[in-house]
């Protein structure tokens, strides 16, 4: 039996209501015990986590790993390394690969690649409709059987309400959510950023917040009609937040995620026409950012998800209006939020940890997100005093399209354990030894 003991860390495990200095014992890749003064079995590896924060492994339920099809942007190997470096032990990857993950062969391929080349757990998300065209349902039954943990046409919005209604109904027996990329493509029109004073001054076509709100409203009504579990991806407007809050109060099964960039940036960031501030949904106004943060704190928003969307320089270096949508986020999410939210006193640490662990795990029925005995030993260790600077060229991701380039702050993940083993080499905390 191989043992690992993390000693004297502040253990924050929201699932089990733990926030105390304790030890975590891992045996054969699973959590064996959490408690004070645990003895290290003979031959155990002991990690001194004194002064650090020990959490269940962070989970990002919204990433684009780009493989198969767009390996020049990211691969399962580089994307999962990026995840591990950012403190994530599991990711759920969207279906807009090429070919689209709308059939079992693609799901099998992703899972096989992840087993061989991935360094964190990879959970595929299947397409709702064939080829993401919004017309005919994908073979959801087989996709669920193959291991898809949710369904989404993310990147596109299923504009036909009838098709979406049928998708929600059809998915009911599989017990997994339908994840909505809520963007009315007619209202969004050719908008390349949020509509408002900044878009007017920059002369860039704006899309109104209503383009998102209209679809969130529709999807909530469809969830109410069908009884499906609807999950709103990358919520970004005050209006959408209000509707989700109201729907939950009525008992509709709707959950939501928010991205780090929508929590700490506004459309003011677009002023330099930097394509790394272009994404869908776009960066919104101050009022929207505040509404998202409030909803995250109170739990109306269940989790933070990065919408990690790698793009090569050639997809991003042209004119703003022509540049691809999306930013990488796996390596910046935790440091940026630890500094800008927790350190600045806008959100308490246990709540942030919950939104990265128990929140996403519950939402997708994943085995992680908790330090319960018998659970996989997926563990993220944070150092709240670690200073950082975002250097795009040092990212583990194959792409560099971060809006946080040059940002500095304090507080970062320092060790990521998947199944009790460091997900990346060269993470410095582990020292061999034992008490007995």
């Amino acid at each position, binding site marked *: 039996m191989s043992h690992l003991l993390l000693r004297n860390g502040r253990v924050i495990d929201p699932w089990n209501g733990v926030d105390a200095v304790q030890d975590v014992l891992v045996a054969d890749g699973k959590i064996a015990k959490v408690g004070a003064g645990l003895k290290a079995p003979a031959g155990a590896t002991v990690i001194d986590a004194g002064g650090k924060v020990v959490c269940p492994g962070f989970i990002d339920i919204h990433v684009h790993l780009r493989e198969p099809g767009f390996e020049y942007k990211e691969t399962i190997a580089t994307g999962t390394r990026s995840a591990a470096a950012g403190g994530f032990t599991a990711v759920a990857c969207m279906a807009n690969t090429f070919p689209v993950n709308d059939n079992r062969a693609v799901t099998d391929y992703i899972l096989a690649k992840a087993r061989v080349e991935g360094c964190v757990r990879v959970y595929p998300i299947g397409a709702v409709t064939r080829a993401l065209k919004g017309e005919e349902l994908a073979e959801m039954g087989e996709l669920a059987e193959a291991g898809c943990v949710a369904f989404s046409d993310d990147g596109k919005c299923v504009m036909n309400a009838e098709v979406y209604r049928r998708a929600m109904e059809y998915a009911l027996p599989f017990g997994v959510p339908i994840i909505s990329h809520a963007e009315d493509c007619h209202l969004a029109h050719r908008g390349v950023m949020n509509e*408002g004073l900044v*878009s007017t*001054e920059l*002369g860039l076509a704006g899309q109104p917040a209503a383009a998102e709100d209209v679809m969130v409203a529709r999807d909530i009504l469809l969830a109410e009609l069908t009884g499906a579990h609807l999950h709103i991806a990358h919520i970004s407007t005050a209006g959408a937040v209000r509707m989700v809050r109201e729907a939950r109060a009525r008992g509709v099964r709707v959950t939501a995620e928010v991205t780090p960039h929508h929590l700490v940036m506004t459309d003011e960031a677009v002023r*330099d026409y930097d394509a790394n501030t272009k994404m869908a949904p776009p960066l919104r106004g101050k009022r929207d950012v505040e509404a998202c943060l409030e909803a995250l704190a109170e739990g109306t928003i269940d989790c933070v998800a990065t919408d990690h969307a790698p793009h090569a320089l050639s997809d991003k270096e042209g004119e*703003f209006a022509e540049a691809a949508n999306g930013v990488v986020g796996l390596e910046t999410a935790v440091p940026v939020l630890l500094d800008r939210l927790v350190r600045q006193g806008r959100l308490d640490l246990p709540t942030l940890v919950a939104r990265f662990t128990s929140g996403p795990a519950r939402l997708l029925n994943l085995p992680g997100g908790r330090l319960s005995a018998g659970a996989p030993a997926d563990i993220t260790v944070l150092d709240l005093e670690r200073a950082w600077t975002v250097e795009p060229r040092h990212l583990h991701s194959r792409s560099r399209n971060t809006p946080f380039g040059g940002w500095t702050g304090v507080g970062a993940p320092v060790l990521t354990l998947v199944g009790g083993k460091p997900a990346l080499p060269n993470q410095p905390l582990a020292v061999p030894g034992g008490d007995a």
Partner: protein
Amino acid sequence: MAWKRKDLLSMQDLEPAEIRAVLDTSESMKEIATREIKKVPTLRGKTVVNLFYESSTRTRTSFEIAGKWLSADVINFSASGSSAEKGESLLDTAKNIEAMSPDVVVVRHKASGAPAMLARNLRCAVVNAGDGAHEHPTQALLDLLTIREKKGHLEGLNVTIVGDVAHSRVARSDIHGMKKMGITVTVAGPPTLIPAACQELGVKVSHRLEEAIAHADVIMMLRLQHERMTAGFIPSLREYSRVWGLSLDKLKHCRSDVLIMHPGPVNRGVELSPEVADGPYSVILDQVTNGVAVRMAVLYLLAGSKGA
């Protein structure tokens, strides 16, 4: 004042003193146009590249004449018949041009922000000759020069800008420039053609033409692009012209010394009736003349004023 800027990208960037410097310099440049030999050696040995990704007659010609009267070597590069057609990116094209050591690159591009991107990446001066729906600073400067010439001053005037403000780079540059010079600006047009949060730019917004132009010292009519109709912003050109076109009839209620301006090219019979476009209130051709003077001033300030 000493000119310190490397580039001219927007009116939003400029200080009032800088605007005055361009206008004052333009006035001295204007004198050159009245000479029999319209050439001074100021920019001899300097190279100006006109990098035009959108078709333009007036602006490109205006920059070309401006450069030539100052004795610069002016090269025109238009997107058709060039590497842009072969898929070369804007940045690559610009870097290639820079490798030939120009002093000024004048750029027009359909994408808002394209000149700003070039300015960040090129060592030479970059002049924005119109980018998307963002800005067209030399147009605003020539508009200000024309108004100052005709009215004797700028401060305290009322200017009404009419039409497709949403898609107009001229309107944005005019609004910023005029506000900085103490002009009160009103914009008027159908709500579908007024951009979001327009009041926050510090202008009055009106949806009735007669009301908007009643007290105006200057009326700036914007060009209506035909594609606005197919894109659903207005029902028809006919209706637009009836409601928002400026005819002699509607001018009856205006000040007797009102100036009618238009950045061109005019859609005759749409935003302006021919009688108004060619009538006594119109200073549209003065704008064109002043355009050359303003561009001479801009090229001089960017390329010639530092130890040339």
